[in-house]
């Protein structure tokens, strides 16, 4: 009964209560968003530990900057934007680290490779390995395509909401989703069984 009431309260009501000092409302926000934000961050970074850190940092920022949220936008848009920005910053940090730490000696950029599943068992391609292959294909996309693909096809958000989260026009979202999907189908074409 109590859980049902908690589930019925909107995100915007929860953040308003939290802004007035209700810590229980903050707990509910954490419970409501921790897994979906983790999925978003994980598909963005491909690393569980870093993704959990990103989600932790997201909630810390919500806690610190609670007054920054204005009720004119959806709360989900605001919190996804925070996670997205943190994930993009982490990707940039990794890129810089890659560039400066190895100095090119003995370093070999590994291209995305699709295993030759013609010679492997079909079941393998459809289980854990398949998930890994898909994750690698997502990783191979640049940030701008990755963000919209994850939000649209994995988080199943509307184009309008993605436009607000990524702060890009609706037409740009649609075009990036289209191009991202085309890139993925090229990489995963071998994996897909055409009926």
């Amino acid at each position, binding site marked *: 009964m109590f859980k049902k009431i908690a589930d019925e309260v909107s995100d915007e009501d929860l953040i308003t209560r939290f802004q007035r000092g209700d810590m229980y409302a903050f*707990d509910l926000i*954490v*419970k409501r968003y*921790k*897994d979906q934000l*983790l*999925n978003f961050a*994980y*598909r963005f970074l491909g690393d*569980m530990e870093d*993704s*959990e850190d990103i*989600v*932790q940092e997201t*909630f*810390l920022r919500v*806690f*610190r*900057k609670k007054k920054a949220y204005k009720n004119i936008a959806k709360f989900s848009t605001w919190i996804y934007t925070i996670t997205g920005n943190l994930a993009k910053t982490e990707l940039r940090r990794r890129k810089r680290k890659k560039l400066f730490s190895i100095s090119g000696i003995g370093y070999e950029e590994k291209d995305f490779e699709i295993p030759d599943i013609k010679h492997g068992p079909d079941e393998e391609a459809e289980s854990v390995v*398949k*998930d890994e292959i*898909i994750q690698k294909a997502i990783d191979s996309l640049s940030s701008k395509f990755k963000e919209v*693909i994850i939000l649209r*096809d*994995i988080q*199943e958000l509307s184009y309008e909401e993605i436009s607000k989260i990524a702060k890009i026009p609706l037409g740009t979202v*649609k075009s990036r*989703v*289209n191009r991202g*999907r*085309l890139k*993925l*189908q090229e990489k*995963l*074409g071998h*994996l*897909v*069984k*055409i*009926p």
Partner: protein
Amino acid sequence: MVTCKDFQDFVSDFVDGELPPPIQKKFREHLASCHYCTYVYNNVAKVCTILKNLDKVQTSDSFELRLRQRLLEESERKETGLAQWLPSGNIVNGKMLAGAGAALVLVTGIVAFHQQGTPDASGLLPSSLNKSNNNYTPISTTQGIKPQDNSISISNKEPDQAGPSEDSTTQNLDVKKDLGDKVKYVEK
């Protein structure tokens, strides 16, 4: 007529069913005659299905506990550290500190300028150095020496010459000591 490029530019909208019905019809007609676009369409549709059905990951059991600990640590830091007397937010604090530092430097500079340029303008000098006081005489007028920018000259007149009492001479000596090289004490 729909070309392969048209089809691929809008294949996502076609898969999502977001094209207007007449265009959808034209796209279907194109698919019926183009094997490559049919292949692309099937792949895109399958990729969308695969992505939607990917396993969902979950936060670790300790996630909420760790978050609480971090929040607790942060609030403790706020209570004991600099945050006690500064508003919250690291960036704001940094900016405020920089601003306060800049203001301090500016005020110090202005005071120093006034002290060097016009001894009494800032009103910060001791009354014994004030121009309105009779014992103040610039070196240039009393000794014929070229005035130096960084010096303040003090003429020590006798008490009966409408100047201050003996105390003021002692006071002037003290001031000289206080101001060091910046003050040239001229005894007549």
